[in-house]
């Protein structure tokens, strides 16, 4: 059988979303540093404002540089479209705010980035949206927690910081069995390692700040619309399947079909909430994505070198990475992540909190900061930083002990990374 006519992943990383600029011939994506766009006529302006035709109006809603990034991410994920936002958290908020209303309910994995956990635990309830947190390993736990107001299941494909591996297909099947979508955060994986839509996820959230950008110089997020969930048939999503007076009674599913979520998220969410991405940040993030395949290969191979070091080290009590045989999800990871399961790992340091502190303060090459997915190796102690707002009970439930140290393995020479970690580990035991 012949193969479908489509560019491969590496080619899309470089080209998707952009044709060379027709007026200047510019090969690189130009930075369209403009707030607004001249209309050809009053009629064209009216048509743009009324969603009759596609095009740019104002850079809070769309921008040509940002649009290249949006198409590129959608292409890499196998979606129908994407909406970029000012941050990953803004992307998560945009997805929730586009789909849910007051009184609605989310069933979420308990193994999450602390910021997402915080938003669902403390912030969303102020707007009448509640969340039940569950163990992401069992589809039944999601179903048991669901009620008549549940509108989506949410999880990270690789959890934070324990790197729990989500069985995307199983949780998607559970979500679809009650007529709700599975929304996943795939920040730690990037589309190079897994494309969740292919496995049944309906919406993919990214913090582009991390591996997709890869350079640690620009904050950004994206909501990727899978285009496969039937919002109208579900009957649970009036924002998409019922007339919207904001655009003269438009029904997004009627007009835009599989692209309904993308269109509503932009036409309402970006327009009214305004968490848009700047064109300069889109440009920076595009530079990162051009080398995503090469970088992710190196991130993974360096991670395996670090795992080898930690595996043999006397100062290490345990290791958490799905590519390590001790990880509870190792077999699932081997099935889903054939190119490796990312470059974030955690380990337990002998000596607990004090040793952890000494380790963090002893690294010289690795940087101690609150980010992951940089080209440079990063270390952090989650219990005192990223997850500090969680109670002791929640920390325990999420598998975050006081001895846990998280590493985001960078692109330096693996010998240098390992030497630095080895030196700091030894220092931590003195």
């Amino acid at each position, binding site marked *: 059988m012949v193969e*479908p006519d489509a560019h491969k992943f590496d080619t899309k990383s470089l080209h*998707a979303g952009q044709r060379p600029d027709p007026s200047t011939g510019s090969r690189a994506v130009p930075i369209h540093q403009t707030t607004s766009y001249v209309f050809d006529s009053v009629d064209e302006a009216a048509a743009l404002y009324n969603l009759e035709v596609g095009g740019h109006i104002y850079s809070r809603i769309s921008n040509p540089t940002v649009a290249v990034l949006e198409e590129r991410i959608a292409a890499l994920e196998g979606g129908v479209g994407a909406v970029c936002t000012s941050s990953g958290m803004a992307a998560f908020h945009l997805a929730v705010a586009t789909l849910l209303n007051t009184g609605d309910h989310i069933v979420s994995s308990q193994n999450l980035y602390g910021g997402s956990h915080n938003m669902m635990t403390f912030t969303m309830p102020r707007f009448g949206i509640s969340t039940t947190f569950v163990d992401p390993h069992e589809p039944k736990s999601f179903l048991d927690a669901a009620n008549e107001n549940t509108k989506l299941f949410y999880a990270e494909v690789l959890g934070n910081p324990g790197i729990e591996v989500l069985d995307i297909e199983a949780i998607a099947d559970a979500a679809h069995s009650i007529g709700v979508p599975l929304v996943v955060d795939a920040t730690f994986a990037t589309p190079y390692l897994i494309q969740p839509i292919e496995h049944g996820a309906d919406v993919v959230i990214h913090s582009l700040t991390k591996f997709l950008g890869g350079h640690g110089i620009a904050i950004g997020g994206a909501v990727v619309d899978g285009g496969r969930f039937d919002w109208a048939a579900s009957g649970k999503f009036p924002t998409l399947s019922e007339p919207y007076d904001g655009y003269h009674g438009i029904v997004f599913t009627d007009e835009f079909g599989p692209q309904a979520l993308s269109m509503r998220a932009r036409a309402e969410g970006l327009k009214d909430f305004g968490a848009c991405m700047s064109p300069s940040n889109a440009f920076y993030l595009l530079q990162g994505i051009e080398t995503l395949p090469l970088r992710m290969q190196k991130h993974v191979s360096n991670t395996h070198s670090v795992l080898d070091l930690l595996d043999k080290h006397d100062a290490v009590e345990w290791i958490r990475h799905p590519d390590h045989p001790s990880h509870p999800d190792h077999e699932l990871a081997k099935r889903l992540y054939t190119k490796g399961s990312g470059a974030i790992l955690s380990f337990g340091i002998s000596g607990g909190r004090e040793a952890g502190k000494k380790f963090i303060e002893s690294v010289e090459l690795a940087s101690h900061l609150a980010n992951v997915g940089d080209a440079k190796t990063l270390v952090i102690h989650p219990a005192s930083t990223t997850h500090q707002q969680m109670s002791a009970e929640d920390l325990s439930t999420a598998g975050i002990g006081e001895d846990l140290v998280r590493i985001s393995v960078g692109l330096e020479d693996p010998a240098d990374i390992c030497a630095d970690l080895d030196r700091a580990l030894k220092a931590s035991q003195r």
Partner: protein
Amino acid sequence: MLINLADSYFSAANGGIDLKEMNENDPLVVLIHGAGMDRTVWFQQTRFLSHHGYRCFAVDLPAHGGTEGPPLETINEMADWISSVIERLGGPAHIVGHSMGSFIALATAANHPDSVLSATLIAVAEGMPVHPDLQTAADDNLPKGASFIAGWGHGPDQHLGGNPTPGLWMIGGATAVVENSKPGILSLDLSICSSYEETLQQAQSVKCPTTLILGSRDKMTPRRAAQPLIDALTNPTVVELEGVGHMSMTEAPKEVRQVLLDNFSNS
């Protein structure tokens, strides 16, 4: 929206305008989708025409999109159905068909001349043979069938991107539309297309004005394959879109809108 038709109903997009608010004096336009697709492939035209002086309806054929019911099994049956839709909506109508929909539009114009003001045929040819691997994938309800259509259906520029609607990935959108079709529908539609042999005969009996919109990079209905049909029609207008593949409505939406406006006003 759902619109009643005899003892059933059909699904259509019309730009979100309440039927009661539509001006019955405005010309009627009916847009007909292709194999395995639905009304939403016209999203770049439907809402625009509905807000520019036309009663425009992009319809879902039976068993497609939001229209239930058993699928129709021949082009002529589909033409009869379109004729009944036009009557229900207060025709006659300007009809616009894409790919398989262009065969339906041609057959409607030939078999129901009183229903049709003009026929615009997008991505049309004398015949539409289907690649055996595509037919096999469709027969097996494989996602690859959708990937074949989306891949072959777009010109090279669209494989790079630059969608006029910001943030939408055109290849992904077409893939999703076909993947979302009901099981067996793509297979049936493709077999209907490949076995349809009445094009030239019907073209010779068409009396209304006709326009063909052809993409210069169309791999599925190549430009040269349309020539016998062009020769059989009486004074057709032929518009060739440079660099465009099989999906002109989404690949070159502005150009297609303008051709339609010109065509309607001249008919």
